[in-house]
Structures are given as C-alpha cells and as structure tokens.
C-alpha cells in the first residue's frame, strides 16, 4: 500500500486530472470536512451538507481539466464550485419549498444548526452565543467568519474568494472577533 504525503492541493489536483485515485482520496480528506462545515453553516442540515460535499467533488471531477493553477489555488477553485452547488441547492429547495425554513442564498446564516454530539456544555454555550452575534453581521462579514472559523481557510484563500487583500482581512477579522468577544463574555 502506498501512502500519500503530498499536501499541495494544486499538485494533487494535477494527479487527479490523470485519474490518480490516491490523490483524489487525499484531496477529499483535506477539503471534505471543511466543505461540510461551510455547507452546514449555510443550510443547518447535516444530510444536505453531506450531499453537497459529494456533489461538489463530483462536479470538480467533471471540470478538473479546466483547473489552472496559474489562475488561482485549487482551494479557491473548489470553493467556487461548492458555492455554485449551494446556490443550486437553495434554488431547487425554494422551487419545491421543502426547505423553506433554511437560509436563503443571499448569504445570511440560518438558525444555529443542531449541535454535534459530544460537544461540551461550555463549548456549546460559547458557540451558540457567538453564532447569534455573527448572524447580526452583514452577509459578507458572515461569509468571511465562516470561512475563517469553520472552513479553516487561511487569509490567502479567503482573499481569493472575497477579493479583499490579506491585510484588510486580518484587520476585519480582528475587529469582528472583538465584537463577538465583547458580546459573548
């Protein structure tokens, strides 16, 4: 059995384009749970989030030949696909009205999703409070905090997603975190 220690997603993406199953597995391990957190924060639905993760990776596989590292990182490219999948999901849900209680596609966060099993009482309280504070922020700031806190993207990757400079993002996150801290404490 060959283990893959390659951590550069751009190189893994090239190998995926050549049909390398191990690189595909590694990419899923790196981004699967991050995408899940992102989708869960937007849909508040774990099953829908799992489906969206699968759909995002299948769509990425369809278009892997169009990925060009010269035009941006794999992470930013994958998030773009994930965002489109999410938009399609909301559109479809709105048409069928089966998820009318979920957040809309304007980027506003839904009610706090059902907490994960095994989360400590203090942590649960902290997250719920912080979530209520974050929901009061404008959609773009909510998106930045979700990408930063939940999806664990670094400032470079968030910069590629939002178009803001890394420096500006650092200042913004610091300011938003101060707001959260002041209201959670």
């Amino acid at each position, binding site marked *: 059995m060959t283990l893959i220690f390659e951590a550069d997603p751009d190189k893994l993406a090239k190998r995926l384009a050549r*049909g390398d199953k191990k690189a595909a597995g590694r990419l*899923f391990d790196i981004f*699967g749970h991050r995408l899940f957190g992102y989708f869960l924060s937007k849909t508040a639905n*774990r099953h829908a989030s*799992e489906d969206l993760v*699968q759909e995002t990776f299948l769509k990425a596989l369809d278009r892997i030949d169009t990925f060009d590292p010269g035009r941006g990182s794999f992470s930013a490219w994958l998030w773009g696909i994930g965002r489109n999948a999410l938009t399609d999901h909301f559109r479809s849900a709105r048409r069928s009205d089966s998820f009318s209680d979920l957040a809309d596609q304007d980027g506003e966060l839904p009610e706090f999703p059902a907490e994960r099993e095994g989360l400590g009482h203090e942590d649960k309280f902290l*997250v719920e409070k912080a979530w209520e504070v974050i929901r009061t922020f404008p959609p773009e700031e909510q998106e930045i905090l979700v990408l930063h*806190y939940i999806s664990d993207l670094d400032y470079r990757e968030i910069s590629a997603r939002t178009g803001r400079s890394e420096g500006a993002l650092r200042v913004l996150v610091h300011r938003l975190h101060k707001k959260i801290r002041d209201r959670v404490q």
Partner: protein
Amino acid sequence: MNFIRRIILEYRLKRAMRANFAPERGSLARAKQVFLNEVEKRAAAPVPGLSRFLLPLKMAGATLAIGLVLGGSGVVYADRSRVGADHPLYPLKRFAENVKLQFSPTEESKQKVREDIASRRLEEMDQLKTKPGREQEVEKLDQEFKKEVKDILKRQSGKPDKSGRAIEIEAPCKAAKNLMRKRAKISSDTEDLPELSQRCGANGEVDLKLEDDDFED
C-alpha cells in the same frame, strides 16, 4: 492579562466552532467512496480525445491486416499456381519472382531462380500464343525469356560469389541450351542466341575469354 484571556477565548471559540460544524465520524465515508468510484471509473474509461479516433484506427488496422493477409495469400497463390500473363494476379506473380531473386542468398541459388523464371516465361508464351491478338504480348514474353537466359550466361565466370562458392562453369551453358531447346519446341522462331554460341560454342564447350560486359544489352 486581558490579552492572554482574549487569545484563549479566540482559540476556544475557533476550536468549538470547528467541532460543532464538523461531520459526524464516518458520515462523509459514503460521499468519499462515491467520489473515488467515479475517479476509478473515469480512469478506466478511454480518453475522450482518443476515443474519437479509436474506431477509425481500429478499422484502418483491420483493413491493413486483411489487406496483408489477402495480399500475402494472393502473392503465394500467384507464385505457385499456373497464373498466365493475362491473369489479374499476374503482377503479383512477377513481384514474387523479383522478391525471390533479390533474396536468394547465393549466386548459385540465383541462377536456379533465373532458370525457373525463364521456364515460366516459356509456359506463359505457350498459353498465350493460342489466343488471337496476343502476338505483341507473346513477343514481350519472349524478350523477357531471352533476357533471363542472357543473365544466366553472364554469371558463367567461374569467379566465386559472395558466399565464396565458385559457380559451376558448364552449368549455365547447359541450362541456357536446355531453355533454348524448350523455346524451339513452342516457337516458330528457332534462331539461337548469339551470346549462347559465343560463350558456350556450338557444342557447349565453354569460352572463358569472354567477360560479363560482352553481354550487356
């Protein structure tokens, strides 16, 4: 102190957020497997760009293979059977003769092939002469027969060939005379080849003073 508390709170918040929004253990396993199965399926499938050319390539390959088999069979058939000068496979027969001559390893074996070729021209002349309006073709075959006989006589030098074996001096004369005798039986033209009498004498004795160049056409 406040700074440290702030850092700790931020760290706790981040950790708790990620923990709460993380998938349940194994819940993404199905999605991962579906994705990996798709990767495997596509890796096993032919390349789209290539598949466009695959069918024409296969057809061209099959056509070439059929062509080679039929062509090869045709050459063998034409070479072995009594294909006449007016037969559609006659060019293949001549092609096979040339190949056989070119690939004969020794001068001695080349001589045998030439004798065989000359005999074939006689047979073809014999077949064709009974058919009306084929006189020119018969004449052409006769010229080709004479050329083969002259070639047989040219090699009557006694010098060793590439393999180091000397050609039997009298054999070419004997073969040429036999061939001319056969020709006399089927042709009204009984005139002998001047080269034959020059080289071999009237009674078949060999004149070694003549060189190969004497017989150039």
